[in-house]
């Protein structure tokens, strides 16, 4: 198997948007001929303003949306030739809001266990053990097995979402704004956890974020999207020291450095 985990070629997605009653539809190009390569163990960050197609691209890579044009290969296989169950074993998402991504009627244990059930795992007697191992991996105490999401804090819920994504040991994890709904103190815990898990489980991350400080800390490669197009892609250090595209420069200018002496942009 090659080391190229994700290979996107000219991916395009159009949405047809209603302009009002009797007015017909308008075509909105959400993702416009985007090509990406992500190697094993890399973290590719996708940055850009809201509405620039980051999340649509993520959904296409997860197989939740079909591209109108272009191809996506995961681990060398075209995504439309992989069955849904196999795809779910290969790539998993972690969403932004842990308050809406967990079913409030299910216990933590059954939420984390669901992927095993869906995959028709052969050894049901081992499930509880596997869930507990995964909970331990993401730093959740085992007493939470029978608790419900509303009894957990935001950071703990995001850990549950991470545990659910990892229980079938996927190779690629797509994190869509994993920390933007969390407090800074919790954000640092989740970022530390994601970094540990990456080396421990040999994961490849695609990180969607608009927090450039987080991107700088986590990513090895950054792709900048603007109005559906990928306008720039380079190594993180290079992007932050020598931005090429005007939009990237605007983005970097809007970083608020937490140091009143070097920052004080608005004083």
């Amino acid at each position, binding site marked *: 198997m090659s080391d190229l985990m994700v290979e996107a070629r000219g991916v395009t997605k159009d949405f047809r948007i209603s302009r009002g009653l009797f007015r017909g539809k308008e075509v909105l190009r959400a993702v416009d001929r985007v090509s990406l390569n992500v190697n094993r163990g890399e973290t590719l960050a996708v940055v850009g*303003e*809201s509405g620039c197609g980051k999340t649509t691209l993520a959904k296409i890579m997860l197989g939740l949306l079909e591209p109108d044009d272009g191809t996506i290969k995961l681990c060398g296989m075209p995504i439309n030739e992989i069955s849904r169950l196999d795809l779910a074993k290969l790539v998993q998402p972690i969403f932004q809001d842990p308050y809406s991504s967990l079913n409030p009627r299910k216990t933590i244990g059954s939420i984390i266990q669901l992927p095993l059930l869906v995959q028709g795992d052969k050894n049901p007697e081992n499930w509880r053990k596997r869930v507990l191992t995964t909970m331990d991996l993401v730093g959740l105490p085992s007493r939470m097995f029978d608790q419900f999401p509303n009894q957990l*804090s*935001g*950071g703990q819920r995001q850990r549950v979402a991470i545990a659910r994504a990892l229980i079938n040991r996927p190779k690629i994890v797509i994190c869509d704004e994993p920390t933007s709904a969390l*407090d*800074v*103190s919790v*954000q*640092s*815990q989740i*970022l*530390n956890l994601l*970094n*540990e898990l990456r080396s421990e489980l040999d994961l490849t991350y695609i990180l969607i974020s*608009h*927090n*450039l*400080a*987080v991107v*700088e*800390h*986590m990513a*090895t490669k950054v792709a900048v999207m603007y109005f559906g197009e990928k306008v720039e892609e380079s190594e*993180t250090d290079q992007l*932050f020291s020598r931005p090429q595209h005007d939009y990237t420069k*605007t*983005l970097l*200018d*809007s*970083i*608020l*450095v*937490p*140091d*009143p*002496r070097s*920052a*004080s*942009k*608005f*004083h």
Partner: protein
Amino acid sequence: MAFVTLLPQKTEIEEGAVSERVLDVENLSIEIPVVGGMLHAVDNISLHVERGETLCIVGESGCGKSLTSLAIMDLLPKKAIRTVNKMSLNDENILNFSEKQMSNVRGNKMGMIFQEPMSSLNPSFTVENQMLETLSRHRNIVGSQAKDLVIQMLEKVGIIPAEKRLRQYPHQLSGGLRQRVMIAMTLLCEPELIIADEPTTALDVTIQAQILKLMKGLQNDFNVGLIFITHDLGVVANIADRVAVMYAGQIVEEGSVFDIFDNPSHPYTRGLLSCIPVPGKIKRGEPLGSIPGMVPSLVGDFQGCRFSGRWGDAHEQLDGADIKLASTSDKSKTYKVKGSETHLIRFCCEDCLKKSYIFDKRKAS
């Protein structure tokens, strides 16, 4: 400024000497009865804002930041109990104002900008309608004069051409534009004080930078006091003059923005600052600092230390010679940090203080 001349004078305020202190709040506590008992959401805090000054309130969610701002506006939920010794706006005691008097103050002398502009604008009225209403309610300005003012103000916050936007509804505007409309609406009556509760959290980084720049510029033009509530320390470093760090309903550290960032003296502030990735400071992939545990529940009579369980393994103790006792109340002790008269830290209990600072007996004697 051409804009100011258009407005009739605010007689009640501009007569007499103008105080430099816009807002002065002393010993504010908020208690809310909940199922399990009394929730002590805010515990005995004091704060003040000078004219033209930005006070940033930072802290994790659930620390009482937003309730504090609502208490100042007298907009707390009905069952909440507010106890406060002093609350004055421009040296005028607003503590015993009736609801009617208060509603003349809100939106007029005190403006508020909320986090989510979509939920604070009325979706069924146009921008023009909502802005004109503010003027007719508080200033008695109607007709073409009011419309001119509205257009001027929208242009001032960078909505150009403003006339085109007047007849639009909030859902037709982008998030950044909506927040600009909110700011314009807040500034229409030239308030003395603006309370902004996470005004840029829902916006993109590029838009956030624009809005912050705009707010800072307008604050200088209008010379208003600004209370800015946020959890983003990057924002704080860029716009604050003074900072108050809140934790579990108390202000644990306050001082100038340089005091807080150059010499954070409370372990909680130090913890918060170590959590954020700073480009160039921490190597990529290196673990960030963190504050273990979570904010304690403040329901019922709180016993013991608010920080128990939140001391990291690697927390460092500081030198007790750097601080000196400033005042003591029955519950907490306030210390002054040496080198700055306005840099204060507070500890909820003795235990907390001892864990943070080493007191060398020989040095003291």
